[in-house]
């Protein structure tokens, strides 16, 4: 539900108003954050993405008063969202990292389908590392701190995830 540019309010103002109990600002803030949260939950939680997005935003708004610096909103939302997405993806027991035997070749039939297929064959933890490094462009140290794993683990998971994509597209 995009808002016309002329009527866009600074996000920090929306945060402060929402923290003060203004539910109109809350509703607008959901509009602002939903695309970003959806872009993180989609690749990590896959078909559980909508559930993960709902859970993540619920946590965000329940804890919004704890956010002292509204300018830090997106980093804070990212941390909550990635953790929720991994938790929900694990819970659904769909995380069955397997060999990439039946992944279609690149462009066959659609790139989007290929990406989805490869992601489907990675564990939620691997997908989270991939999203944070390749989609969010965070450095390995930050990714490790966010997921509470060592930099070495970040590197190994990233290696495996990227290898999976290369393997799929070189078939």
């Amino acid at each position: 539900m995009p808002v016309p540019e002329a009527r866009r309010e600074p996000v920090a103002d929306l945060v402060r108003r929402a923290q003060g109990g203004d539910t109109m600002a809350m509703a607008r803030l959901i509009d602002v954050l939903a695309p970003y949260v959806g872009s993180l939950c989609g690749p990590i939680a896959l078909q559980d993405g909508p559930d993960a997005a709902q859970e993540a935003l619920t946590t965000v708004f329940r804890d919004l008063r704890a956010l002292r610096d509204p300018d830090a909103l997106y980093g804070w939302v990212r941390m909550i969202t990635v953790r929720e997405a991994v938790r929900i993806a694990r819970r659904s027991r769909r995380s069955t990292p397997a060999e990439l035997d039946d992944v279609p070749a690149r462009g066959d039939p659609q790139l989007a389908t290929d990406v989805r297929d490869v992601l489907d064959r990675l564990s939620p933890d691997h997908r989270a590392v991939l999203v944070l490094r390749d989609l969010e462009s965070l450095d390995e140290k930050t990714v490790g701190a966010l997921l509470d794993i060592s930099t070495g683990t970040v590197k190994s998971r990233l290696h495996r995830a990227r290898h999976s994509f290369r393997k799929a597209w070189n078939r």
Partner: protein
Amino acid sequence: MTQSWPVADLDPIRRLRVMAASIRGAGVAERVVPATVDQVWAVASDLENELPHLVRDFRSVRVSGRDGDRLTMHARGLLGQRARFDVVLEPGWCWCQSRFLLCGMAAAPHPDGTTFGFLGGVRLPVAGVLAPLLSTAGRPLIAGVLDRLEQRVELRQL
């Protein structure tokens, strides 16, 4: 490549759930109505004509201003009390806030028709303390709203 990555959608019903879970004392309920989203939303979005039918506490509703999806709404209660609401009204989504009251409606496609959700709440400092009581007391009221919404949708199909 990143443009092909899957994106999770947050439909209006999920938005309403987020609002409900984040507002203490708010009550929410959902129902699957055997009609299309357009049919359901034709009723729900007709605030002046339908809201007094749906919410029994409203004797009349008047929309006094409109700027795109933002409306100003004046409601008069059964005892003559008045409330001015700020409203956001979009396809499948409506959020109303007055000084003391909250009201939200949402609709999204369902395999058997449309999921319709209604939220009611109060904006009082004690709402947090009274949350369990408000939630329990509000349940039959919200169920009534859903009953009447279903009836109003049916009426329009006749």
